[in-house]
């Protein structure tokens, strides 16, 4: 498998990024929700937020890399039978997920650094504060962080349901693509035959 995306397949970098970040992000939502109800004497009262902040910063670094990678490697085309509105909706949802992730990470950073404190990442390094001292910054950033996190989870659910719909109802190769599996023979029949030399050239280089 190629590292880079082709017009029909995801490369392994995109696939690994997707499947590494997806559970981490859902896990972060769960951790963020859970750690806020811990009692003061719970051993996780301090460790929970430490873990949440450390993973958050690492995810931010991964997200920046992922966006760069995405910019250099356009996603494969939608499955041929996908209606145009669905393809557009999918693109919009993907864009919104990236934007939400970025906004959630930045707002989270602004909570913890509101008083000028740096964020410690597992003792490996620390990320200093930049924007600070806005009146009630931690509360405003906290409110945004929470609302956007729930919005993201709603979109994630929609995204997962859409993938399952493609797989089980449309029976196309959408889900198989991000799993790094070859499209089913049935659905690959649906691909239009290479019309121009340009398309055949790109398919051969991607193999």
């Amino acid at each position, binding site marked *: 498998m190629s590292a880079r995306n082709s017009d029909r397949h995801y490369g392994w970098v995109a696939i690994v990024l997707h499947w590494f970040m997806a559970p981490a992000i859902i896990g972060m939502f769960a951790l963020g929700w859970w750690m806020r109800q811990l*009692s*003061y*004497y719970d051993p996780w009262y301090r460790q929970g*937020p430490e873990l949440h902040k450390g993973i958050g910063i690492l995810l931010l670094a991964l997200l920046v890399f992922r966006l760069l990678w995405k910019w250099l490697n356009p996603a494969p085309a939608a499955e041929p039978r996908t209606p145009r509105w669905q393809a557009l909706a999918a693109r919009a949802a993907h864009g919104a997920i990236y934007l939400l992730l970025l906004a959630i990470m930045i707002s989270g950073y602004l*909570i*913890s*650094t*509101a*008083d000028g*404190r740096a964020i410690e990442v597992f003792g490996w390094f620390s990320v200093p504060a930049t924007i600070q001292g806005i009146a*009630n*910054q*931690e*509360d405003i950033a*906290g409110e945004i962080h929470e609302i956007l996190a729930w919005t993201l989870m709603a979109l994630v659910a929609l995204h997962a349901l859409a993938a399952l719909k493609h797989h089980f109802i449309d029976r196309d190769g959408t889900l198989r693509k991000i799993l790094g599996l070859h499209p089913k023979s049935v659905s690959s029949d649906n691909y239009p035959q290479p019309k121009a030399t340009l398309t055949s050239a790109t398919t051969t280089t991607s193999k």
Partner: protein
Amino acid sequence: MKKLAVFLFAALLGATAQAAEYKIDTKGAHAFIQFRIKHLGYSWLYGRFDDFDGSFYYDDKAPEKSSVNVNIDVTSLNSNHAERDKHLRSADFLDTAKFPSATFKSTGFEPQGDGMAKLTGELTLRGVTKPITIDVTNIGGGKDPWGGYRQGFTGTAEFELKDFGIDYNLGPASQKVEMILDIEGIKI
């Protein structure tokens, strides 16, 4: 009218007898509303409210007539730690989204001699109004170098968190909070 009469009377007497209304000098930050609570029973944690305003009436010839009113912006809580401040403002503690302000209105002032007194009043915090007693000491008063006249006090009070509906468990040593109040007023 009553205040004006008092003022005119005081003016007639000259600048020595000082029965007057004072505005708490929050503008020049010569006033502090601080609290402290024990952390695990091992140390004291201090915090303060940065935004408040108020006024008091004080007559050094008749201190028992003193009165004070203070409004506190609870959202201005500051304990030098953003994450902790956020938690203290949340529904676990002060619930400032629902109850953004606190007030203190005095109901009595009992001089105890040597400039000390017991100031009683109603504290409204987190939507709960309860009487509290503040032990007050008059630190001093007189002309300031810029043409004004000032009077200053220090006071302490304590109450249980649960009295004002805060039931978050900080441990057995941290049920009570102490208020440390320092105010300087400028004669209006």
